């Protein structure tokens, strides 16, 4: 299919849902991408299966604090510059782009870049949601080197990072982003299509589009849960499970090691149930009376209870009326090697991953 401006409202809403609170508010990238598609025309969305084995796929996405992104808006060319820098280093051109993370504004970055470069965009990504760090991408988990990784700013100034592993690359790019004013655009994980087929989370652009459409069309939470089921299953995810409908009764935030760490407390509308959601940029685990009822890598999404609009962790506030929805992670995140870097213990919680489908 081809992605045009008419798809972006749904795509942005679906990406925000899959962002599990992180990935940044997609509103600004929605506007920037719409303008680029109007100017340069629609972008082709391709299946990895339809690319030749040797086709070169490069991952693209921004890194930075959401508040920085709300002041330093994109000029729209950053993605193209990051891509060209990586291509120049490697001495080969990309044949297709893939999102580093489908969650939040980063879900739209490859489409904006593709509008300028006329490259196709792969229906898939490296996270299936949003995560805070490079080594949490499926590309890295399943053996693709994150580096060489390019990082550029709004002038096109930039660097190419080479590093012995993804954790090191992440540490370096974080410092680079800071020197660039708190955000940068990256191209990384260059791989052939044969490899990408093995390591990517597939079908997530289509999934975001469909979820966004259901968010817009569903009359209420129950309707959304029912309507989203087949789309989530098609992409390998578990069903959406309503965990709580209630009000936000407390939000605490602290900063630990460069992350937004906090606790969102909720209280049911109708019963005495309460819930705590632990935040590290993303919503990571949901706890009810000391019991973990949902744990990362399963998705924990918070949406407005009336409009179903996803609420990012930066915008969650006391008094909001919300629904908490859990979604089972795709199988690629349930393997021992994936859980070692994205399971609850990787975030410091003293609990093993318990899939949603076993706890509810």
């Amino acid at each position, binding site marked *: 299919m081809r992605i045009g401006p008419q798809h972006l409202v749904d795509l942005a809403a679906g990406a925000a849902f899959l962002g599990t609170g992180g990935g940044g508010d997609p509103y600004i990238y929605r506007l920037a991408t719409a303008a680029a598609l109007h100017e340069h025309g629609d972008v082709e969305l391709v299946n990895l299966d339809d690319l030749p084995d040797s086709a070169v796929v490069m991952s693209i996405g921004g890194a930075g604090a959401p508040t920085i992104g709300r002041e330093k*808006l994109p000029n729209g060319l950053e993605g193209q510059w990051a891509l060209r820098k990586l291509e120049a280093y490697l001495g080969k051109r990309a044949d297709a782009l893939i999102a580093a993370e489908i969650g939040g504004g980063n879900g739209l970055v490859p489409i904006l870049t593709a509008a300028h470069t006329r490259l196709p965009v792969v229906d898939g990504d490296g996270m299936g949601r949003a995560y805070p760090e490079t080594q949490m991408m499926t590309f890295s988990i399943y053996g693709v080197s994150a580096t060489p990784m390019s990082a550029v700013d709004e002038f096109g100034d930039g660097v190419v990072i080479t590093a012995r592993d993804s954790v090191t690359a992440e540490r370096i790019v974080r410092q680079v982003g800071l020197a660039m004013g708190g955000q940068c655009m990256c191209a990384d994980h260059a791989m052939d299509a044969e490899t990408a087929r093995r390591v990517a989370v597939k079908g997530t652009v289509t999934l975001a589009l469909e979820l966004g459409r259901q968010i817009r069309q569903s009359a209420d939470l129950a309707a959304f849960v029912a309507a989203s089921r087949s789309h989530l299953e098609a992409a390998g995810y578990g069903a959406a499970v309503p965990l709580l409908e209630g009000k936000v009764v407390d939000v605490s935030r602290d900063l630990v090691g460069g992350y937004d*760490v906090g606790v969102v407390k909720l209280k049911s509308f109708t019963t005495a149930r309460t819930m705590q959601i632990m935040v590290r940029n993303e919503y990571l685990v949901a706890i009810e009376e000391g019991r973990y009822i949902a744990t990362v890598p399963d998705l924990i999404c918070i949406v407005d209870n009336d409009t179903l609009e996803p609420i990012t962790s930066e915008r969650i506030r006391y008094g909001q009326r919300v629904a908490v929805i859990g979604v089972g992670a795709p199988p690629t995140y349930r393997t021992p090697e994936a859980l070692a870097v994205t399971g609850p213990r990787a975030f410091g919680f003293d609990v093993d991953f318990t899939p949603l489908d076993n706890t509810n």
Partner: protein
Amino acid sequence: MRIGIDVGGTHTDAVIMDGAEVVGSTKALTTSDILSGIRAALDEVLRQTGAAPSAIECVMIGTTQFTNAVVTRSGLARTAAVRVCLPTGSAVPPMADWPPDLRSQMDGGAHLLHGGHEYNGRPIAPLDANEVSRAIESIDASGVRALAVTGVFSPLTPDVEDEIAARFHDSIDVLDVTRSHELGRLGLLERENAALLNAGLKPLARHVIGAMRASLDQAGIAAPVYVSQNDGTLMEAAAAQEHPVRTFSSGPTNSMRGAAWLSDVDRAIVIDVGGTTADVGMLIDGFPRPSGTTVEVGGVRLNFGMPDVLSIGLGGGSIVRESGARVGPDSVGHELVERALVFGGDTLTATDIGVGVGLARIGDRALPDLETGVLDAAQQRIRASLADAVDRIKTSPAPLPLIAVGGGAFLVPDDLPGISRVARPQHAGVANAIGAALAQVSGEAELLYAAGADARDAALASARQQATQRAIAAGARPGTVEIVDVEEVSLAYMAESTTRLRVKAVGDLDLDEIAVRDV
């Protein structure tokens, strides 16, 4: 004594308060010149109380005129946007997401210039003098005389906006300039939107605020004039003329603040039933609960604090249909006194139902016989609508008191689910004018700080002090200033941990200080 006035779309209400007592109140019709409506209301309350104009110490005015101008797309000036941002930001130009009808009316051209600052104050790029000159020439030639200047991270580093505004003032004679940092918060698009609307509203603000002053002069009242802001606090009339967007949403805020004061309850549900709609909100600590999700006025995104208010199509003028199964959302509005049955008209309205079931005594003739069951059915319908709205706005299942205000307050039943009791205070019909007269002023401070326990304490102390000083500068009595809100948001993904801190202080208006200044 002080006077509270609410200039709404349909009615201009006025009250005179002596200390904590309402000594006079009235409702007049709003007029298109604003002035004669206020005059009529003023004359009536002065007559009621026999107060001498010289005994009035202070006048507080709330108005929905500027919100209505944006919503109805009338009275807005064509406005040019100057954004100091390059090489960032060109992918999302000014007014990119505005409704086309509003944009076609207000778009006075966009000029993106090199400059702006990083979060830590480092310049992104130097200003280009030639670029600035070209923008000035272009706007001068276009004839547009309203201008909004927005710089990247200007709430933290306002210098660039000041410099550009000064250059424009030096070059073009008559110009309404709004610098975005005057209006506050981080979030460039929303701040730019507020600056654009503000610049475009300034000519209307001169008219409205000028009419307010003129009507008071004519009535012989020389007291200082304050205008209410969207958070229920006051600003000086001159500030309202500079920043009309700060009055957005002050209508529901005033009626909720007035309701809180009239009933001496500071945690409650408030329902303000007007002619066409009922506004349902929640009071926490005497202030309306702020809205958490995206705020829009007339389809334009803003990052102001606005009260979380649910409007439903139910008011005294709501038309009753289908044997009482449907009430509203359409209304006879200000034609109630011609069209309602109890005024001899031909339309069955919610007011007629209220009279029929004995909740209200309104009108100049008896209610004619109605179809059997209509009264019961309509009353049940009204009850169900209000019960649903109350449930949607509540934050906890625990029962809360409810305060019913507005001309149609009699439609609120005494036994709504989740409500412990219903307060129907005296003067509930003019709660909005009373809310305007509740003298509180505020000051806000916002800053970023890097990690470390000492840094946090220092930042917090500095922000508290700044906010307090700003409240006092705005007219608050020093001993009464309290910090009412502290908000911290950490900037994720930054290697050097950085937190955004926002503090708000509120205090009572210092009436003595006003008198001294006035002399």
